């Protein structure tokens, strides 16, 4: 059987729309998920046992179950429990944000842990209020240390976002599968879809390595 990659070109607009959906979803969830993750990371290191317990259960649960199951749960069960209709995009955003929040909170927790106790002692000695300790001392250092891992979390999220195709959201994977089913040319279409994901994710992973080296060099001073 001859392979004809020009099939893909005919559907380039549809694929571009799908890619845009994938990127939009990823960007929204990166922003929301990182913010959520930072607060969860703080909650996990908090002095209150209640906050620690709740945040640990959340993180362990989302890290311990497949993202696909989480997606299905949020798509099919959340509307029933809340009694409101959720749009596809809203459900996708909720599911991926909760997932991203769980994995980035671990990143933030590790970077918070790496800030030595002597820094907090210094803050106390300077009489800084708790809020200033967090915003001016802990946050900048924690974020700097977390950046490389956060970037690789973003790459993971970008890849996991392909799962929303399974619940019928029109992202790159969904569009690709549709085209491949309708044209009966899975080899060409699916290969191109895989290549598109690769072309975006691969440079990002290289960037992670570069940033990692930068940050390490900066912290080593």
């Amino acid at each position, binding site marked *: 059987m001859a392979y004809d990659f020009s099939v893909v070109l005919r559907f380039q607009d549809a694929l571009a729309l799908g890619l845009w959906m994938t990127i939009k979803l990823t960007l929204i969830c990166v922003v929301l998920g990182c913010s959520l993750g930072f607060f969860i990371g703080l909650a996990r290191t908090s002095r209150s046992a209640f906050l620690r317990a709740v945040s640990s259960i959340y993180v362990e649960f989302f890290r311990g179950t497949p993202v696909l199951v989480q997606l299905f749960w949020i798509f*099919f069960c959340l509307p029933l429990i809340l*009694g409101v209709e959720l749009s596809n995009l809203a459900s996708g955003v909720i599911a991926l944000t909760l997932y991203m929040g769980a994995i980035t909170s671990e990143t933030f927790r590790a970077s918070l842990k790496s800030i030595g106790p002597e820094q907090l002692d210094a803050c106390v000695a300077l009489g800084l209020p708790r809020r200033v300790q967090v915003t001016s001392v802990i946050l900048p250092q924690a974020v700097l240390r977390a950046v490389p891992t956060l970037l690789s979390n973003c790459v993971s999220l970008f*890849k996991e*976002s392909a799962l929303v195709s399974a619940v019928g959201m029109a992202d790159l994977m969904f569009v690709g599968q549709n085209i491949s089913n309708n044209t009966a040319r*899975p080899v060409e279409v699916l290969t191109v879809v895989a290549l598109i*994901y690769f072309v975006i994710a691969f440079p990002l992973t290289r960037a992670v390595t570069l940033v990692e080296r930068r940050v390490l060099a900066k912290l080593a001073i």
Partner: protein
Amino acid sequence: MGYSFDFRSVSFGPLWEGLIVTLQLTVAANIIGVVLGFPLALLIMSRFAPIRLPAMLFVEFFRCTPAIVQIVWFFYCVPMLFNVFLGSMTMGILALGLNLMAFNAEAYRAAIQAVPREQLDAGIALGLNPLQRTLYIVLPTAVRASIPVLLTNGIGIFQQSALVAIVAVQDLMYQAKTLATETYRPIETFTIVALVYFAVSFPVSQIVGYLERRRQLMMS
């Protein structure tokens, strides 16, 4: 709206069968990943570019594309490209196994690079040939050092294995989807299934945490 829960309508028979399939997939993929990941790591680290580059491309490709794309690609394209028709279980194992192999190769590579230079020098001084050095010095040290990451990757593949439900392998997730549609009880079914996945992953991730803490204590 008050939702009345009814967990009795969830039949555990199919879910149990699904879990067995999921565990079979996980174990088989892990055997492929753990065993073949090591030689792949050696290939990535080869000084000879025609060996290194294809191996690196293989690893990067699996690490930089979504697992669902890989699995769907595998199920649709491998039979067409190579004209082979394997059972869906075999295909699932191969797709997951190759994915895990790429991730484990990276874990092994990091561990191999962490093998102290002196140990290899000692190996040369003792007159061991490169194969013996790899088998008796690099392999035991690197494998022991990479156990936490291998376990994390292994549990990752246990979770990723839920994806094969999309291509109709009858694993836990597939049974859950069928059951949820048949009984109109998605909340109960998916909650139970999520708990089942969690009950398997959580203990393993606790073991990983324990191993890592012990290792840090040993290092300090």
